[in-house]
Each structure stands twice: as C-alpha cells, then as structure tokens.
C-alpha cells in the first residue's frame, strides 16, 4: 500500500462544523415528525413539465411573500387557535426522550420501557391540560427538539407530541409538534422546563425507580454462575481478554451475565463483545433479518445490523446471546461468533477443513488464477494481478500493475492436459481508451479478443506442474510455507496450495544488475 493510499484515508472523515452538524440533526429529526409524502410515479411524470412551471411560479410567489413577510415582522403566522386542544381530560402522560431521560437517571438500557416516565399526578395534569388548552398560534419554523410527550386521555385517545422551547429576544416559547399531522403549535411560556422540574421531584421521591438490580461479581464467581467455560483469558480464537463480568439480576430466578471483552491486538480499551444469558425472552427473540443455521446440533439465529452482529440460541431453557457491540473498524462476523460458541461448548475448532478439497487438477490445487499482490510499494519488482475467465476456457485475462507504475493486461493460455499456463499476449500502458471501453462495458471476452489481436506477442511460462517436483519449505517472516516451485528461465514462481502465486524469485542478470544484490524476491503482501 502506497503513501497515496494512506493520504486518501485521511479524507474519510472531513472537518465539519459542530453547529451545522447539530442543526442538520435537529432538522432531520423534525422531518421525521412530518407526514411522509407519497410520490406519484406514473401520472406525475406525464405532468412533469407543467407542474415544474407551476411550481416555479408558486415558489417565486412564496419567496416574494416570505421576503416581504420577513421584513414586515417575523415569520408568517397562520392563525390563532382558542378551541380546546385536549378535548378529554388527561389520564396520564408518558415522557420519553433518550437524552433528557438520561439527565434524570431514569434511562435503563436493559429495560427500554423505562425510557418513558409516566406522570399521573392529578394536580399537575390539570395545570398542564389548562396550559395546552390556552390560546396558541400555529407557526412554521425550525425548532430544537427537547422532549417527547405522550398524552393518554381518559377517553382512551393517545396523543404523541414533541416539545421544544425557543428563546428569542428574551421571550420563551414552547413549540408543540404533533406526530402524524405535521402541525406545530406555539405556546407562551416554557412547558419543557416545567415538565422536567416535575420529573426531578418525582425522581427524588421514588428511589426505587429501576427494576433492575446490578450486582458486580468477581470474574471467578461470575464464571461459576455460567454453565460453560466461556473463555480462558488469552485463549479466545479472536485473541480477546475478558475485561469485566457483570451480572444483572432480574428478580429471583432470572439473571443476565454480561461479559466484556477487550481487544488485545492494539491495546485499545475497546469493548467488542457482550454475552448475555437470561431466562427472559428479550435477548433471544427472533426478528426480521435473522438467518437461521444449524451447527453441532444447535440452532442459531444470526442478525447483522451495520457494525454490530449478534448470535442467539437456546439451551436447557436458557436463552443466550453473543454480540459484537462495538465493532467500529473491527470486522466481527458470523464465523467469529460461531467460533466463540464452539469454544464455549468445548468443541475444538477444525482448522483443517480446507484440506482434501483440492483433489482435482494442479491448476485448482494451487489456485493458479487467484488474485495476487506481490512486493511492497517502493519495490520495482512489485506487481499485482486479478484474473477474469472468458467464455473460451483456453484463455484467462490478467489485469494489474507493474511496480505500481504502469497498468498491465496479460493474456494467459491454459493447457489442462499438460497442466501448463503460458502468457501469450501483453499490453502495457497503451491502448488506454480502447481497453477502458471494454472495462466500462464489462466485456471481458471483448477485451480478450482485443488482446489477441493487438497485444504484444510473447510466450512465457507462468505455471507448470510436474509430479517429479516437490513442494519446498521456505521461511518467510518467521513462518514456514510449503510452496510449489515453477522454474521460469532463471527465475522461480512459487505457488501456495489454495492461495495462488505466493512469491517470485528473480535470479536473472537484468534484475540483479538493475536492482543490485544476488537475487530479488517479490513476496505476497496479502493473504
């Protein structure tokens, strides 16, 4: 990987204005409270041009109206409402919004229902009802969301609302947004703070707000509670260490074990796994998007949501979940999770399952047409190639670079009778427009034909198999590799079973003279 690649990565997350980011967040959230408009996809197309013209006129009208309106005193006000907003008495109120609930210590990640706090104090409700039924103005403007409020009326009606406050020129106003109908009311005064203050008082009075009791155990004690040896620190297939074990007790008979793992490879304090055991249903409920699979006689369901993935299963009336919970930059997928469960059940992981699968031809055994990348960025003998099979099985197209400097197309001819592959055509850094047309059209057969017609002719061995030649044990970076050598003139191509071209050793005079030294090696840089 070259320095250009490294610099490109620096563009992954660009500088961003925090205010703009938050404004974007609030506006996006406000949009979610607006009714979704359905697009007409058929008739509308026919009317596209006239509607566009009418829209342009209408937008022009709106802009003019807003311009003069703004200069004549604030945003456009539709009307003032005096009829009761709440036509039935309020029975109770639910208030919920992650951040604001957190402020009062009521947020409980293990029990989402606690995200909503109920207010049923009659005195407060009456005053609140009066506030809501006070004169109000219908307005349209940006606002900052602060609190979700759901009114439950005595007539059974549920009214979800969204409250925010604004302070402009010393005047505090509450904006109430109604879910579904997209209408926002504006009240004088600050209802949000009033609701919060009421909540604070409630929290002080009700110490027993949470139903979940958290008990911290030592690692040994926690693992004794667990029916299986989940992991021995340092021996996990992912090289993970148990960092902390927490047991959440849910009543008398239910508990959840939460094990936090640290990734050991980079020393970060990154939590990447949580494992829960509970006899409650919530941790193992199947939901949309899950794949079901059998492994070692157990049925697992797997769900992948973005950077997280979880595996659920049931055993002996317990429901288990193993999840990657913080996997940014860490690709923890199904196989890794399954490996962990194997280890939990004491099943040795079969690393040899790939053996015996290359029983056919040597070309398949040595995966001759596997994409490769040899040599480091500054290496003049570095090269890379990807392969494309055409309809004609005799030819394979190779596409890659040489020394990261020129683009190279090679055409390989395959002789399965003699187990031999030869390079017969080459185009290096020429015919760029023509070759790109084939690439754009993804016409690999066309590109093969083009190479046959216009490519530089050559006849160079790439791979040849003989039963008389044995694999060699070669140490590279402290690891022993069994590699199959193919002599190509003075040079040697080494192939690895199932992996393809692994190393090229250059003994030819031209390379030695050019680069100095006895011989040069270009070694595979990616597996």
């Amino acid at each position, binding site marked *: 990987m070259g320095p*250009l*690649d490294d*610099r*490109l*990565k*620096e*563009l*992954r*997350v*660009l*500088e*961003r*204005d925090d205010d*703009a*980011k938050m*404004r*974007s*967040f609030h*506006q*996006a*959230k406000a*949009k*979610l409270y607006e009714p*979704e408009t359905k697009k007409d996809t058929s008739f509308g197309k026919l009317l*596209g041009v006239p509607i566009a013209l009418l829209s342009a006129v209408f937008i022009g009208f709106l802009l003019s109206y807003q311009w003069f309106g703004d200069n004549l005193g604030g945003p456009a006000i539709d009307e003032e409402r005096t009829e009761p907003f709440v036509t039935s008495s309020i029975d109770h109120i639910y208030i919920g*919004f*992650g*951040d604001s609930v957190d402020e009062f210590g009521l947020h409980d990640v293990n029990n989402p229902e606690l*995200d909503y706090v109920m207010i049923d104090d009659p005195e407060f409700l009456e005053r609140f009802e009066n506030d809501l039924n006070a004169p109000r103005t219908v307005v349209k403007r940006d606002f900052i969301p602060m609190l*979700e409020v759901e009114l439950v009326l005595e007539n059974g009606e549920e009214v979800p609302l969204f409250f925010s406050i604004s302070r402009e020129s010393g005047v505090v106003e509450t904006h109430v947004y109604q879910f579904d109908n997209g209408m926002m009311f504006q009240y004088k005064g600050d209802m949000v703070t009033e609701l919060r203050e009421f909540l604070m008082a409630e929290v002080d009075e009700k110490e027993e707000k949470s139903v979940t009791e958290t008990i911290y155990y030592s690692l040994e004690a926690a693992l004794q509670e667990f029916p299986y040896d989940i992991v021995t620190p340092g021996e996990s297939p992912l090289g993970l260490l148990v960092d902390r074990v927490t047991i959440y007790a849910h009543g008398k008979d239910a508990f959840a074990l939460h094990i936090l793992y640290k990734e050991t490879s980079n020393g970060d304090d990154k939590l990447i796994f949580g494992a829960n055991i509970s006899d409650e249903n919530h941790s193992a409920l199947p939901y*949309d*998007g*899950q*794949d079901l699979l059998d492994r070692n006689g157990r049925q697992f369901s797997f*769900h*992948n*949501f*973005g*950077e997280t993935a979880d595996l659920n299963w049931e055993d002996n009336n317990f429901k288990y979940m193993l999840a990657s919970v913080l996997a940014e930059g860490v690709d923890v997928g199904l196989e890794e999770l399954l490996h962990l469960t194997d280890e939990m059940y004491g099943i040795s992981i079969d690393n040899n399952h790939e053996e015996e699968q290359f029983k056919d031809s040597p070309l398949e055994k040595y995966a001759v047409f596997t994409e490769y990348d040899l040599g480091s960025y500054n290496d003049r003998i570095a090269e890379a190639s*990807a392969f*494309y099979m055409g309809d004609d099985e005799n030819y394979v197209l190779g*596409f*890659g*670079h040489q020394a990261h400097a020129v*683009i190279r197309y090679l055409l390989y001819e395959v002789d399965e009778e003699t187990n031999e592959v030869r390079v017969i055509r080459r185009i290096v850094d020429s015919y760029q427009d023509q070759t*790109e047309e084939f*690439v*754009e059209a*993804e016409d*690999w057969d066309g590109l093969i034909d083009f190479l046959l017609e216009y490519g530089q002719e050559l006849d160079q061995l790439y791979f040849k198999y003989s039963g008389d030649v044995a694999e060699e044990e070669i140490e590279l970076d402290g690891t022993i590799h069994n590699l199959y050598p193919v002599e190509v003139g003075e040079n040697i191509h080494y192939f690895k079973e199932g992996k393809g071209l692994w190393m090229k050793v250059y003994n030819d005079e031209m390379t030695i003279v050019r680069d100095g030294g006895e011989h040069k090696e270009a070694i595979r840089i990616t597996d």
Partner: protein
Amino acid sequence: MEDFDELYFTYSDRIYSYILLMIGDREIAEDLTQETFVKVYRSRDQFDGKSQFSTWLISVARNCTIDYLRKQRPVYLWPFEKLLKVSAPFSVETKVTQNESVQELYKQIGNLKQSYKEVIILRKIQELSIKETSEVLGWSEGKVKMMTLRAMEKLRVEMKGEVEVNGSIR
C-alpha cells in the same frame, strides 16, 4: 426515536464526508446528509442485512446525491447513466482539512471524472471492499478492480503534475 440519534451520531460524519467529497459544497453536503438519514430511518425495515449496514447507508447517500445532481441539470431527459459521466459542480475552494497535502489531494479528486471520483471515494477513502463497492455502484467486481487501478493511476499523474508545477514534493 432514540435509535435515530444513535444512527445519526454514529455515522453522520462519515456520510457527510462522503457527500462532501462527491459534491464539494459544505452546505449542500449537510442538507443531503440530513436527507439521507431521514430516508434511512424511514426505510430501515427494508435493510435486509445481506450487506454491511454502512454500505447500505452509503448507497442511500449516493442516491440522494445523484438525485440532487439530476435536479441541478437543466436537461431532464438525460438517461441516468449519462448523468453519472458528468462531474458534480465541485468547489475546489472548500477547505476540508488543515493538512495542505491532503487538501491538495481533495482538490485533485474533485477534478477527476465522476466514475473515477466515485470509485476512489468508495474503495480508497471509505475503504469499502470490492464487493461492497460493486453493490453500491452497480458494477461487476471486475470493473471495480480495473476502474480503481485506472483512477489511482490518473490521480497519481495529476498529483505528480502538481508536484512538478509547485516544485516540491507533497
């Protein structure tokens, strides 16, 4: 609605950066980021879990960006494929980083043709895999590989030209 907050604060910087690289205008990038997250949240049930969630997010962001570009074009009847060959109205004056050499890289990416720009952003900047990039762009994996190599070659040539003009190695 809490999951929306988490979604936004986890991914929005990355999506914003992706769109800014495509468009080159901060304000529009914010608007399109906002639109992307509204669309994603409203259609979150459609995510089938077959691809990485972040890949799906980028696909939605790309669609929003393409829609925006389409609306900027006076010719409404252009086919979608043709639109993709047209570069966005990239503002190279937009400063995206304090690092001058990276800023220069940003400018040069803005000068590339759209298909090169897209494949570099996805493969080299967003570090999507070949398969993920092929899903987002609707190309074959082979085309992604080849276009990446070509785009990088073109970018290197442009950067080299810049070095020669300025007489210093960046």
